[in-house]
């Protein structure tokens, strides 16, 4: 049975008074991830917003061990820790690599690919706020089509975001999932699942960012939920190659009642006044991905 609000553990691993932006979704993500891991994890963190959340020397806002890493080095550093723990016979800890979209899909991609190919005993989590938010909102390869960033300032990004889970899936690892801070129970359950598996596990988490996406801080959760409700972000897991929709996305597939992408886009000022053609391309892309996901879900059910 899926975890709900009332059976989530009470124990917290993130302390109040941290350095994250008001309304940052990464706080929600980390709270539920760390609950699912029961705190028995070592986090490896490259330069990213999460670095800031974790705090500056000599104080920390998270009650888990964190190892900071150079930007491209997350997966390798995590591999090293995993190997070290194995040599020491410690099998009670999960090594979590926690990187942003840049640290995963851009500069971190080589390291992630290497670790995944070796099936390193690492749980790699990409919290995807869809641009280099920590350095001031520069485009990444996961920035969506049409989004304005400080390096796509006038016309918005000209390319679609790349399909990160598909790239990772090509490595044949035991577990891949997506998750959203809009659905903490689903996220919690997936982290619990990942925790129980050895080898490389990967999770792609949609992480709405009020300053970067340009929406009011209060809307973070609503934005995360809209991403799922429109099908712009699909909740699924792939266990040993078997693809299944989960949670809200599964419910949407059953009822076939997705919202139009416009509803999600128009709340974010980063898209400015989107021309109809770009909007249509975005909708078309979402529809295509959605159709494929539903078809695959049904085929592998």
């Amino acid at each position, binding site marked *: 049975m899926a975890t709900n*609000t*009332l059976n*989530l553990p*009470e124990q*917290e691993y*993130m*302390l*109040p*008074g*941290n*350095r*994250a932006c*008001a*309304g*940052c*979704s*990464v*706080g*929600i993500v980390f*709270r539920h991830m760390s609950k699912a891991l029961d705190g028995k994890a070592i986090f490896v963190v490259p330069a990213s917003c999460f670095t800031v959340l*974790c*705090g*500056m*020397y*000599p*104080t*920390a*806002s*998270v*009650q888990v061990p964190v190892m900071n890493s150079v930007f491209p080095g997350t997966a390798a550093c995590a591999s090293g820790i995993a190997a070290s723990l194995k040599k020491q016979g410690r099998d009670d800890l999960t090594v979590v690599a926690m990187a942003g979209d840049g640290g995963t899909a851009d500069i971190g991609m080589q390291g992630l690919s290497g670790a995944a190919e070796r099936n390193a005993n690492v749980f790699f989590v990409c919290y995807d706020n869809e641009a280099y938010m920590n350095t001031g909102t520069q485009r990444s390869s996961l920035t969506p089509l049409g989004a304005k960033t400080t390096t796509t300032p006038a016309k918005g990004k000209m390319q679609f975001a790349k399909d990160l889970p598909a790239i990772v899936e090509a490595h044949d690892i035991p577990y891949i999932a997506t998750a959203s*801070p809009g659905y*903490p129970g689903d996220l919690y359950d997936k982290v619990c699942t990942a925790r129980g598996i050895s080898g490389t596990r990967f999770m792609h988490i949609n992480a709405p960012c*009020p300053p970067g996406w340009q929406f*009011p*801080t*209060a*809307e*973070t*959760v*609503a934005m995360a939920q809209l991403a799922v409700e429109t099908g712009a972000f699909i909740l699924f897991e792939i266990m040993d190659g078997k693809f299944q929709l989960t949670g809200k996305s599964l419910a949407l597939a059953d009822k076939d009642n997705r919202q139009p992408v416009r509803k999600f886009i128009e709340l974010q000022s980063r898209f400015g006044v989107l021309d109809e053609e770009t909007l249509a391309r975005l909708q078309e892309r979402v529809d295509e991905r959605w159709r494929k996901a539903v078809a695959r879900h049904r085929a592998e059910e």
Partner: protein
Amino acid sequence: MGQTRHCKQKTAMSWPCVGEAGRTGDWRTLRPVVDPEKCVAARKGKIVCMQCWMFCPDNVISRTAPPEIDMEYCKGCGVCVQVCPSQAIEMRPEHAEDVAASTKEEASCDR
């Protein structure tokens, strides 16, 4: 808070503490206020709903009935207002005098 200069660390390693970034309650311009008449947990006097606790990005809302918000560190994002199914929380402007009274110290880690 006494200041001593006895740091023995060879490398940078941080300890967890509340208020890592100082009193982040100072970041607020709007303050969330829970209406006990509308809050289901408050009305029933038991742990139900707890959406505000679950979604709080800053872990400043307690899992209690009624939920309590730690105003020392609440950044005033308003997520709790949005996720409350009973519209029991509203954002009210901070009083000017409250802001002036708050400490501006960089590291005011209280445990």
